[in-house]
């Protein structure tokens, strides 16, 4: 199993390095498809191993517990479809001309490195090394965000860099504070930075230091996760980045930020009690939802629309973990994976629309369902899922979170439901405007070469999204039980 | 069983025969008040007989609704009459319907009449139907409430039960104020439902004022006869309601032939008295403007409502 973990982590790195040497498009396509296949296979092995009950680890550096395996699952699955999508998307750009081959190649290098950093981060058993990997992902994404050399892309890239670097630095300060607390208990050593060790010793750490550390980490990684009010870079970057990157930013990188916060929460809770971190998360979560909901209402750009929707969903997840309990934690985790699938689907569809019309204006897009049935349908379904409609999993997780919230603090549940309704109305209004009706423009249809890959990515995501909404597979549940233990949920999952 | 059927048939015949008489009586009273001789007592019967024999003119624009309506109207009105105690306090068919049923049976006829008014395609018919709609909608709540106010004393909305119980008390009203209010309300309803002045004028065909006459403007011959007869029956029904619900004196409470015969006589006197009253009112008042009718009918509604409130307040 450890080898699978190694392969999982190494595959993007190797692929990225190999990409540097690629000279033609078909080779690149094959390389990246192979990369995706390896990712999926290795992920399947890791997940199967962890689901069977044994954490996978390699040395003292890498350790995949249930939470890590869960993140691996998301990263590899969505990362894989994103790769396939990117092959189609960038291929289309290449054949149409705006992107020449060296930049095409560079895109995949950045992309692979970005994936590598993320996969690496979630499997590291060390709070500080994780920080390094997360920083690595921030850096590699920074290159991708400004990939289109337009003014807007540059501006978005700059804002992304500044805000995220500041954020990530604050997170490092938080990490230092954790070390400050833990070295008194565990000694000045690598041990004092290991998640597994920290988790065991959590109860004996100094609570005040941990509180401060949590604030820094929350704000630091929260910036990366797009938590309001640190979210301001997010809509810009998501809108201006090439669409495969937008999908990965929204579907995966935000979850990575959340993962980092959640990991620390598992350390902080035993030391200071669950109320502390919970309150901050609920507060910021509701704030994120509020801001996102209002901006969804007035949105005119469909990529920004989905970006704000991501902020909303990050808020939902935060509320879920903030209120805690079996329902809240389960709901939060379930929400993360469903959101990853739904949001990447939405972005894939949005990318196709962008390729067709060449603009991101909601008002200029109508009749997608008629003009591009698969893309329009995918966008419709993704939007419904994001809006929290059954039979998609986001509905289930939202109800679970509301249940958890009502048990603890009814007013949180009221606010939560209210914001969900507003966001629902806004999102549905905006997306349905595009999907329904008669098409206005003809636009540029996809070449078959690009269309095939993107169609596959869309379909794969849709199937996965639909499936886990209707039935939660056994291996996923097998991951969820130990994960809720990580979050100190006692008692049976009802 | 046979007895019941017999009584029902007798009641039907009595009502059918008496109804043109009442119409004629009102005309006679009005004529007298206008210092005219007026047509003879039997004139309405002659009219009906003549109409039955005459050819009918049917518009080519109409459908089967137009031809079916006279029969539906006639039979639904007659059915309603069979539910109302005339000379026997407990009519055999009392189980088949109460006051609400009576109201809705009459509405069934009105509904078809309204359709027939629209069927010919002439603007008059439509106008009549449209006006009938507003008048009917304002009278029916008042009617139901006013009877209910009386029904409260008897503890029933079944007409037979109401009349029977009151009759057993020798017509001594236990709650006079609510009963008086309900009586007033029902009287107003009667004027409106039967198309009498000041709501409608059965004697005119002036296009801007007519309601009932406008709806049946296209009818002739046998159809008109049936409709006229049905309206006469309806008038009789309302007068019977007023007299027997509020003053069931003399009505037979047992099924003895003598008593029932006596009951018929008393009932004829009572409804004749009411007919005279209506004739008086028709002569004394002018027809109201259509949109003033609302106020008039609103008064009936308020009165019937007050009757119920008073009933409860007086009873504590």
């Amino acid at each position, binding site marked *: 199993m450890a080898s699978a973990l190694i392969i999982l982590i190494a595959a993007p790195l190797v692929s990225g390095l190999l990409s540097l040497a690629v000279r033609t498009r078909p080779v690149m396509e094959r390389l990246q498809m192979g990369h995706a296949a390896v990712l999926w296979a290795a992920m399947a092995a890791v997940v199967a191993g962890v689901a069977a009950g044994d954490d996978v680890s390699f040395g003292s550096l890498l350790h995949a517990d249930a939470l890590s395996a869960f993140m691996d699952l998301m990263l590899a699955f969505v990362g894989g479809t994103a790769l396939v999508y990117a092959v189609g998307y960038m291929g289309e750009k290449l054949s149409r001309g705006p992107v020449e081959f060296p930049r095409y190649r560079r895109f995949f290098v950045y992309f692979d490195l970005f994936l590598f950093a993320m996969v690496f981060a979630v499997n590291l058993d060390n709070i500080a090394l994780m920080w390094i990997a997360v920083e690595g992902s921030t850096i590699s994404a920074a290159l991708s965000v400004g990939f289109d*050399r337009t003014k*807007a892309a540059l501006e978005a890239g700059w804002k992304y860099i500044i805000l995220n670097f500041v954020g990530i630095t604050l997170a*490092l*300060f938080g990490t230092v504070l954790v070390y400050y607390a833990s070295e008194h208990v565990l000694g000045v050593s*690598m041990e004092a930075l290991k998640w597994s060790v920290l988790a065991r010793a959590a109860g004996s750490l100094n609570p005040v*230091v941990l509180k401060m550390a949590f604030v820094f980490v929350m704000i630091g990684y929260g910036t990366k996760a797009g938590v309001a009010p640190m979210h301001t870079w997010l809509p810009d970057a998501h809108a201006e980045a090439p669409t495969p990157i937008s999908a990965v930013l929204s579907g995966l990188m935000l979850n990575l930020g959340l993962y980092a916060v959640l990991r620390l929460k598992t350390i902080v809770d035993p030391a200071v009690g669950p109320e502390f971190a919970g309150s901050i998360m609920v507060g910021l979560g509701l704030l994120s939802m509020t801001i996102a909901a209002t901006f969804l209402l007035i949105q005119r750009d469909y990529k920004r629309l989905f970006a704000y929707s991501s902020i909303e969903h990050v808020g939902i997840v935060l509320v879920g973990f903030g209120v805690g309990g079996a329902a809240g934690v389960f709901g939060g985790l379930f929400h993360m994976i469903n959101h990853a699938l739904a949001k990447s689907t939405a972005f894939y569809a949005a990318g196709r629309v962008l390729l067709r019309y060449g603009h991101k204006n909601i008002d200029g897009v109508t009749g997608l369902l008629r003009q591009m049935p698969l893309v329009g349908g995918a966008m419709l379904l993704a939007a419904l899922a994001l809006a929290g409609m059954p039979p998609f999993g986001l509905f289930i997780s939202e109800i679970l979170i509301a249940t958890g919230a009502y048990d603890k603090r009814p007013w949180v549940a009221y606010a939560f439901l209210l914001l969900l309704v507003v966001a629902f109305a806004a999102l549905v209004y905006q997306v349905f405007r595009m999907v329904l009706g008669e098409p206005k423009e003809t636009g540029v249809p996809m070449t078959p070469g690009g269309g095939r890959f993107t169609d596959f990515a869309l379909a794969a995501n849709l199937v996965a999204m639909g499936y886990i909404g209707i039935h939660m597979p056994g291996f996923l549940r097998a991951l969820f039980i130990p994960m809720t233990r990580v979050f100190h949920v006692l008692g049976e999952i009802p | 069983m046979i007895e019941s059927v017999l009584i029902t048939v007798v009641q039907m015949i009595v009502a059918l025969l008496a109804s043109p008489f009442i119409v004629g009586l009102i005309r006679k009273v009005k004529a007298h008040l206008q210092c005219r001789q007026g047509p003879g007592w039997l004139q309405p019967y002659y009219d009906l007989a003549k109409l039955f024999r005459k050819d009918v003119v049917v518009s080519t624009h109409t459908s089967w609704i137009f031809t079916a309506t006279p029969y539906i109207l006639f039979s639904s009105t007659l059915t309603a009459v069979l539910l109302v105690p005339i000379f026997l306090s407990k009519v055999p068919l009392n189980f088949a319907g109460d006051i609400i049923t009576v109201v809705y049976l009459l509405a069934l006829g009105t509904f078809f009449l309204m359709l027939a008014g629209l069927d010919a395609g002439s603007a008059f018919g439509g106008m009549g139907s449209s006006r009938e709609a507003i008048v009917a909608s304002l009278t029916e709540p008042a009617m139901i409430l006013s009877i209910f106010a009386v029904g409260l004393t008897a503890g029933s909305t079944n007409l037979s039960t109401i009349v029977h119980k009151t009759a057993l008390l020798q017509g001594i009203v236990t709650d006079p104020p609510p009963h008086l209010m309900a009586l007033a309300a029902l009287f107003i309803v009667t004027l409106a439902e039967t198309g009498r002045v000041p709501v409608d004028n059965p004697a005119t065909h002036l296009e801007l004022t007519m309601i009932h006459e406008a709806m049946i403007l296209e009818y002739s011959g046998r159809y008109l006869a049936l409709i006229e007869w049905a309206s006469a029956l309806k008038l009789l029904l309302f007068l019977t309601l007023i007299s027997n619900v509020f003053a069931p004196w003399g009505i037979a409470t047992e099924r003895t032939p003598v008593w029932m015969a006596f009951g018929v006589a008393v009932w004829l006197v009572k409804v004749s008295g009411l007919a005279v009253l209506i004739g008086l009112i028709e002569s004394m008042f002018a027809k109201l403007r259509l949109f003033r009718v609302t106020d008039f009918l609103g008064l009936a509604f308020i009165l019937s409502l007050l009757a119920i409130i008073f009933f409860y307040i007086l009873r504590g």
Partner: protein
Amino acid sequence: MVIHPDLGSQLVNLCSALLLLTCFAIIAQRRLSACVDLFALQSVFLAVTAALVAFLTGAHHIYIAAALTVVIKVIILPRILKAVIERLNVKRELVLNINIPSSLLICGALVILAFYITQPIISLGFLLTQDSLAIALSIVLIGFFIMIARKKAVTQVIGFLVIENGLFLGATAAAYGMPLIVELGVFFDILVAGLIIGVYTHRLQDTFDSVDTSKLTGLKE
């Protein structure tokens, strides 16, 4: 050689204080190249502090951190920044979001705030470096403040680097340094980050003819 703990602690505190002072100097300085110089100076103080701690505690891996600080923050990054300034031909910053006197006042307040915030956890620290945590937090906050108060991309980068310095002070002084592998990783990341910022600054200049980041308001609602 053995140094009395009190003396050592005072030395460390002195160095930390110097770090803080350079922050104020950066705040008060409009000329960009001077800002870069001040940052380099600050990095020197940081390296000295780190070396002191390494010496006093015997944690030798901190020497390496100190050396890396000198290499990267005193030599490489200032050079890159100077080159950028040279190329962009922006010498000084004329318009500030917040003027210098108010900035200084605010930063004073931030220092007080930092001390106030860290007070409950200071007692937890090692005797040698007890006050360093507060100072480190002050520097982080001031660096952050510089990023908000200044408009030019270069000064924002300096603000960012000041935050990093504060962070390093915290790591080395308060926590006696992170494990070496961590330190190395962090340095590598910072280096790459600095490079990327440099690249972006160039692109900004090429595309917008300006590195005034307050003009980057095309993307909004």
